[in-house]
């Protein structure tokens, strides 16, 4: 993707669907109940395969749905990991605290980088340049996540990734090997579209991060996330072209 321009229209969803693996693509058209059943199947399979697992929760709706789906199935002491980049929307912190309390999450872990280097990195590389995005995300988001996976000795890690979000994510499988540290990423929502997520939160009355109500459709740090109020735009249109263009490099480092 590095040298291609990102299409931020809704066509991008279709393009991503076409890139999805043949065994995953047909699942896109399942009903919500069938999708829930399939995702639970993936979660159970992972739990049976990998003795030590964790789950990533960012405060966004995808990982929220994943957590809601997984909670009845996973052990009570499974670590639920939030990577605090130190530049999240303030509502995200409040929301996460509320979910942890309301859903009675026993083993919630927040990790963050030792130092906040945002200002220095902006000075050095300029905001939203490829270098800045790679190093800033690498330092504030990816490294703390990889470190906690290593420190906890996790064999596998659940994340709320969906294939239609990005061309690089579209190529994923349910179980995906990662290195440094070696572990498996598990993607139970890989075949969910955005409307499925919305239907799920409505059907199960799941409270979402209030930032979405302010016109955001995909959440990142305040510095690099913009509102996306065009109904014809792709769900990640507010995340900026640079991040989307260098996604492969970020994912090689460990990005979801």
């Amino acid at each position: 993707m590095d040298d291609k321009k990102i299409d931020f229209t809704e066509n991008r969803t279709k393009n991503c669907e076409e890139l999805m693996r043949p065994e995953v693509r047909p699942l896109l058209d399942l009903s919500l109940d069938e999708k829930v059943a399939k995702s639970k199947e993936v979660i159970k399979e992972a739990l049976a395969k990998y003795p030590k697992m964790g789950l990533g929760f960012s405060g966004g709706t995808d990982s929220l749905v994943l957590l809601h789906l997984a909670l009845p199935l996973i052990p009570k002491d499974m670590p639920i990991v939030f990577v605090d980049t130190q530049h999240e929307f303030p509502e995200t912190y409040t929301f996460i605290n509320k979910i942890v309390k309301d859903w009675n999450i026993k083993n919630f872990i927040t990790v963050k980088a030792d130092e906040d280097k945002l200002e220095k990195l902006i000075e050095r590389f300029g905001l939203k340049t490829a270098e800045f995005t790679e190093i800033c995300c690498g330092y504030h988001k990816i490294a703390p996540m990889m470190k906690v996976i290593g420190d906890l000795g996790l064999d596998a890690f659940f994340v709320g990734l969906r294939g239609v979000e990005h061309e690089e994510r579209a190529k994923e499988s349910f179980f995906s090997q990662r290195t440094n540290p070696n572990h498996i990423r598990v993607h139970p929502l890989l075949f969910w579209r955005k409307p499925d997520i919305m239907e799920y939160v409505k059907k199960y009355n799941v409270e979402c991060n209030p930032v979405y109500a302010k016109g955001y459709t995909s959440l990142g740090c305040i510095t690099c996330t913009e509102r996306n109020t065009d109904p014809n735009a792709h769900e990640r249109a507010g995340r900026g072209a640079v991040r989307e263009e260098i996604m492969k490099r970020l994912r090689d480092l460990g990005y979801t």
Partner: protein
Amino acid sequence: MKNPNLILITIDALRPNHLGFMGCDEKNSPNIDNLAKESVVFKNAFSVGPTTPYSFPSILTSTYPLDYQGPREIKEPRVLISEVLKKEGYATAAFHSSAYLSEYFGYNKGWDFFSDIHFTGGSLKASWLKKIFNRMTISFFPRLFFWSAYLKYRIEGPKNIKVRAPLVNRVVKDYIYSLKGKNQSFFIWIHYMDTHTPPLCYEKNKVCSYAELIGDYAAAAIWSHGNKGALKRLIKKNFKKYLPETLSSYDKAIKYLDKEVGELLNFFKKQNIYQNSIICVTSDHGDEFLEHGGVGHNIQLYNEVLSIPLIIKLPADSSMGISNRTIIKEKVSLIDLAPTLCNLVDVKKDPSFKGKNLFDRREKEENLIFHQSAFSEKEGHRLEIERLDQCRVACQSDSWKYIIDYGGGQEELYNLLDDPNEQKNLAKTNLEILFQMRNKIKKFEKDNPPLSKL
């Protein structure tokens, strides 16, 4: 050429007489004092109302709080200054943590980025229920209330009581970074709560001395429960006893906040924003420390709760007909702030704005400013106002101050030249002035009918 940026900083419950540039000897505010040195300083500025909900309609919409259907919700025909500037192409952002300024009350309009930062996700209704519960506890079991508050404070520390300035600043900085490369003028409004009651022990950050703690909680209790009812004496006694500690805590809160404001101003300098921005610092109201037998701010319309700091730093190369380092001594009201800010950035004020441009130096008629407040028993707060008998209105000139309480019809009249602390009510002895002031209020109310139905 790009319009100048506009940065509005409001500090909740900040009394001007605790600030260095307003003559305070305590070195509470070196950073704000430095900003004042290179700004236009209004030495006699007043808020329209004594509380956040009664002051902010004037600050952000240039209307009086009792206009239309009262301050319950900011909606048409009120227009926020953010809506005006956004229409003119400004990037607009708000950063605050006051429930009274939230989306629930309609303050979210016209902002590209509206950050209402709260620690708890609880609803306002829940917080009022909690207040009612607390009120009952303190009414029947005052010792239990004080000790449970003390224990809660001891266990939790001060960290979760209110949102502190560093978090607000962090979000402001992130937002400013996000604008990089856009070449768009911005209007940001930053509201800090650090100086609001209860003033926390900011100096040591975590550990408070016993005296400070009880001082804080005496203040907190009074703030939460007003000055009415059977506990008035007990609260007053407690407050009187710990007044020095509470005042000291208040000064420490100002010092703490001033440092954070300084840090943010330095950030603006580093980002090359400071020089060419208009920076306005003010407060929504003051606070009472027993001057009229009460504490905090509620329905009173005395000047200790209405007097506020107001400074406006113009861009370095300003050709606006007034220069920084000007001191304006005449009385001014925050009703005029939004039209003034619009004028400074050459944007036409909205027709709904009632104020005038503070820098319009043309000869004026007698300089009069007006204040309004109200109290509602309903739900234990001050917003569901339905009747005029819940309201108070005041008017002040350079020499006189007149207050009328529509509840009981009581009138107060003070000669501000002889009695600036408003201690000697002359309503019964100076009838000529009383009638004059009463007529001025009548005229004001004819022009601005309180609680008029739309």
